[in-house]
């Protein structure tokens, strides 16, 4: 009832562990899979080793979460090892997320990570917490987003998803450009903002990076709108990510046009078994409303 397909890869259910949550090691990814995730995404892996920002790197507020982990990464060799280890121990599909600060390095990262044979590659061009090559997000410029996509596509045979940022004036234009450049799918969205939380007793920003990307409930309506817009513009599948914590949220995202849904912050709000919980809530909704499969739900909000 809950199975879905992304570029020919079968997922038992549409919930996917989003990048950067619990995704540092194979063991931790397997823990998410054992807790019901239909697929898992690694934390974004870069060629070089990176420590990330000093703590605090995550705080929560009434409407969600704000983070500036700063893309810590054990480097590509260790990243390859973790993906291989996962493939050895689990049958759940794994998405390897890669990131780089220069366009050319994306190609190298894609080529290297392909050695580990992940089921999909996700290209993170949308992290708001690190300076990219031109001092702005790769995902903020259609031409730049397209050239990163092209370089990655030319470096691997594995299907490529490009992860977009909600912090753009016209996400349709970016989506169209990455599709034209050969992307096999789109993940939408990365965190919004960036935002800031200040401690008023010391008058100091709490995050060490001062600002960070907003995820969780506050992001959800923005993410739903982005997925809705993208679905109207492209034919490739979408992983809808942003603020999903329960079955209702997931169904909403599917109706906006997502083929599968990413869950990140929800791990904090509902526990690591959030995937199982969301799945049983989707199923309950489907039974009650008489839906037989996800196909009947995906994109349904566009019928009006």
């Amino acid at each position, binding site marked *: 009832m809950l199975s879905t397909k992304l570029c020919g890869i079968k997922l038992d259910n549409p919930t996917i562990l989003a990048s950067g949550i619990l995704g540092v090691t*194979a*063991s*931790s*990814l397997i823990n998410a899979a054992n807790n019901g995730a239909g697929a898992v995404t690694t934390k974004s892996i870069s060629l070089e080793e990176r420590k990330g920002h000093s703590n605090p790197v995550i*705080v929560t*507020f*009434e409407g969600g979460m704000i983070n500036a982990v700063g893309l810590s990464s054990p480097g590509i060799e260790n990243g390859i090892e973790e993906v291989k280890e996962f493939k050895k121990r689990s049958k759940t599909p794994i998405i390897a997320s890669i990131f780089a600060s220069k366009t050319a390095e994306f190609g190298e990262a894609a080529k290297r990570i392909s050695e580990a044979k992940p089921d999909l590659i996700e290209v993170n061009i949308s992290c708001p917490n690190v300076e990219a090559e031109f001092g702005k997000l790769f995902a903020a410029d259609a031409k730049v987003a397209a050239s990163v996509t092209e370089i990655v596509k030319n470096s691997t045979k594995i299907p490529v998803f490009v992860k977009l940022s909600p912090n753009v004036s016209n996400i349709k234009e970016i989506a169209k450009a990455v599709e034209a450049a050969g992307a096999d799918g789109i993940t939408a969205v990365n965190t919004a903002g960036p935002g800031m939380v200040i401690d008023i007793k010391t008058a100091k920003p709490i995050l060490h990076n001062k600002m960070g990307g907003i995820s969780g409930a506050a992001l959800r309506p923005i993410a739903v709108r982005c997925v809705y817009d993208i679905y109207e513009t492209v034919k490739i599948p979408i992983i809808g990510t942003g603020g999903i914590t329960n079955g209702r949220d997931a169904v909403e995202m599917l109706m906006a046009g997502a083929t599968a849904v990413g869950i990140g912050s929800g791990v904090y709000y509902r526990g*690591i078994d959030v995937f199982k919980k969301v799945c049983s809530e989707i199923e309950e909704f489907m039974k009650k409303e008489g839906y037989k499969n996800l196909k009947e739900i995906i994109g349904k909000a566009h019928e009006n």
Partner: protein
Amino acid sequence: MKTEQPIVLQIKKIVNEASKIKTFIFDYRLDSEPGQFINLWIPRFDEKPFSISYQDDKKFAVTVACIGPFTEKMCSLKEGDLVGIRGPYGKSFNLKGKNIVLVGGGCGCGPLAFLADEAVKKKINVNFIIGARTKDALLFLERMKKSNIKTFVTTDDGSFGVKGFATDLLKDFLEKNHIDAVYSCGPEKMMKKVAEMCKNKKIYCELSLERYMKCGFGICGQCCMDDSGFRVCTDGPIIQGEEALKLKEFGDYRRDASGKKVKL
């Protein structure tokens, strides 16, 4: 609604416990359980995890060994300075039986001292083996004696108490006495020995683990251990000895801030 933002507190009192080890006392009702930890924030500098070493209705404390950039900075702070805390985080120790042994190494004695206080309140007989490198690094001896807790000291160099390791004394203890449970916190190789000894003798045992932490509330994945993905910040830091022995990396390696493996 609860948010994971630091609460900023004044450092009420600083006590020099031993050479380069200080206890920071706060006038704040924390309501934590022994074994739990807080993330301590020095604004615009960094934030790191510390176990609670003392607690009553009005106060709590952490005991910090100055060993690197953050803890050195901690040790340069003065009474009245402001720091942030969030938590308490993690699982606590579970007291079992009537006669228990605590095995602490270095700063690991902090959470055990808090546990000892709670055990005494519950009329449990506490035997506390306090291990230190030298006499200068010895912790909580006077505090424990005042509470009528039986203390046994070992130092690596024999400068105080019995020369040798805390585990040597434990071995003796388990042979000569009927012990219901053992609780340990300290260097991982020491805890591994404790866990193995207890497993052989079928004695209930709990340990307190340490791994590199970022969030402290179970989402970043930085503290997860192989092979089960055990999250030290939320599934731990307290773990049963037998469970710890099942973790492939226990006593062998850990991961640093980047996620790369490093040998212990």
